[in-house]
């Protein structure tokens, strides 16, 4: 991977929610991460360990209580089109067609006229051709997930936050989109944070796999995946990596 100069640093990040009864629920506890431009980092951990919570912090949607979170040295305080977020739920705007949903971000930033072609390109890449004029209630769940990905990627963000974006897809489509993501990383060298429950996906896509503990989430392992692309999913090295990640996950549960 090409190392660039953009850098995302999370240091001692803790985030808790205070319930109505005043009880604190610690979601993230002293979480640390350093990611450089062009790196794909997978976050993997049990459900409810704070993965989405962390991505929301990086997106600038929430504020943490402790620690620092910086992008290129500047603290993250608000959302930015530079940091694209594919949410866990597609939540597409029901009043827009697929085409307009994908173009939404470009229009909001007055970039639509210059990057018009990118919209169709993204729609084709995500296998949505022919559904440009469809409304969200007319497409399948897997297609909705792909529209959500297209909507974010069309902006060519410097940081891409993916919250289980492919979990609603069939195995074949998933493999296709995974390769598209890799191609895009090759082309634009973004920082990618990928939350996934699929160990194979984590090993296939990422340069590093960060394993989180059960809630409150904190780093328990940082496993480099130094296999050359394209990766062979059934090679012994690949399978060995999967074991390594699985062991890191199981270790904590035991």
């Amino acid at each position: 991977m090409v190392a660039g100069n953009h850098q995302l640093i999370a240091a001692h990040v803790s985030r808790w929610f205070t319930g109505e009864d005043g009880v604190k629920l610690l979601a993230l506890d002293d979480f640390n991460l350093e990611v450089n431009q062009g790196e794909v980092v997978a976050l993997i951990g049990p459900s409810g360990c704070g993965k989405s919570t962390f991505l929301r912090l990086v997106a600038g949607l929430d504020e943490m209580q402790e620690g620092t979170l910086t992008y290129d040295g500047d603290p993250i305080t608000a959302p930015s089109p530079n940091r694209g977020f594919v949410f866990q739920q597609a939540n597409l705007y029901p009043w827009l067609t697929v085409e307009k949903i994908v173009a939404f971000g470009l229009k909001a930033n007055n970039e639509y006229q210059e990057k018009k072609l990118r919209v169709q390109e993204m729609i084709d890449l995500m296998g949505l051709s022919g559904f440009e004029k469809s409304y969200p209630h007319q497409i399948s769940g897997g297609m909705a997930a792909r529209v959500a990905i297209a909507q974010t990627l069309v902006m060519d963000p410097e940081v891409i936050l993916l919250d289980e974006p492919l979990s609603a897809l069939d195995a074949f489509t998933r493999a296709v989109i995974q390769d598209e993501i890799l191609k895009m990383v090759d082309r634009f060298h973004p920082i990618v944070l990928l939350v996934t429950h699929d160990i194979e996906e984590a090993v296939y896509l990422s340069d590093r796999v960060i394993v989180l503990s059960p809630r409150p989430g904190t780093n328990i392992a940082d496993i480099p995946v130094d296999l050359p692309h394209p990766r062979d999913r059934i090679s012994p090295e690949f399978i060995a990596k999967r074991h390594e990640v699985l062991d890191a996950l199981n270790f904590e549960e035991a």
Partner: protein
Amino acid sequence: MPLASQNERTQDQRTIFQYVQFANGKEVLKLAAPLVVIALAFIQDAAMPAVYPEGYVEARYPAFLMISLVVYLLFAALSVWFKPVRAKVIHFWGLLIVAYGLLMAYNYNTVKTGNLLLPVMPSPDAILNGFFEDVGGAASGATGGLFFHFMGSFSLLLQGVALGFVAGMIYGTLMGYSRFWNYWLQPIIKIIGPVPSTAWMAIAMVLAPSSHTASVFLVSLTTWFPLSVNLSGGIRGVPKAFIERAETMGASPFYIIRHVIYPAVLPNIFTGLFMGLCFSLTALVTAEALGVEAGLGWVINHAQGWNEFDLIFSSVIVFILMAFVLLTILFKVQKHCMKWSKGAIQW
């Protein structure tokens, strides 16, 4: 794609001849039935002498039935040939039969027998004549019968509703979007909103520079209230994910209001406008009865004073038509704006 090209081909072949298809026996019966009823109504009116009031000469009711007959005959004839027209005309067959049947019965019980109390229940002919009466006399500038007063009401209503729409959109948006504004605006709407327009009328008349201004203000108030309440409630209910998604793509607050919040609350806006329009019709009649010396509300009030019941009926019918057309337009616009929604409110 094979599917799309197939569609295009059938589109190309569509000519007017494709729509030509003769009605079958059952359809012909359905087309003929209203015709028979309208003809019966005409024959009844012609055959029976007017007995109440004595010596009454009917003028417009026979003509009305004749025109109905000719117009329906035209549509029925077209329907025998053209399938799309047929579907629409047949849709109304039951309603037409009942409507003209009732008209026939009503005519029988009024001018033909006097069974119903006159003049409280005017004959169809008297009601029709009411449409052409220049109420208020030439001095008030009334010409063209009730159309003059219809225009007065209509323009007052439109001015009031337009003003109320703008006010309601701004008020509702501020109240729904901003906590600060909500703190200050909420109490005002809670106090002013539920007060019926009748109660405001006297005060408005004194405070406003003219009775016209007062009436517009009252009508706008009754549109503003339900629109603001529905809109602000809708805005607070917009899924947070919709807004956050736009934020992460760098959309400004104004862009989000215009392109995320307003589309999301479109159903609420239409519900508010629907309620507002209905309330405003009430306010209109009140305002006209007390303030402006024109309009359907004024005619109704005036006719009541002179016991001209036929005129009351005529005005009410014009009023119904106006309300019906306005609400139909509103729902057509809603249907057009909300094509994306699966189940919009039907009218």
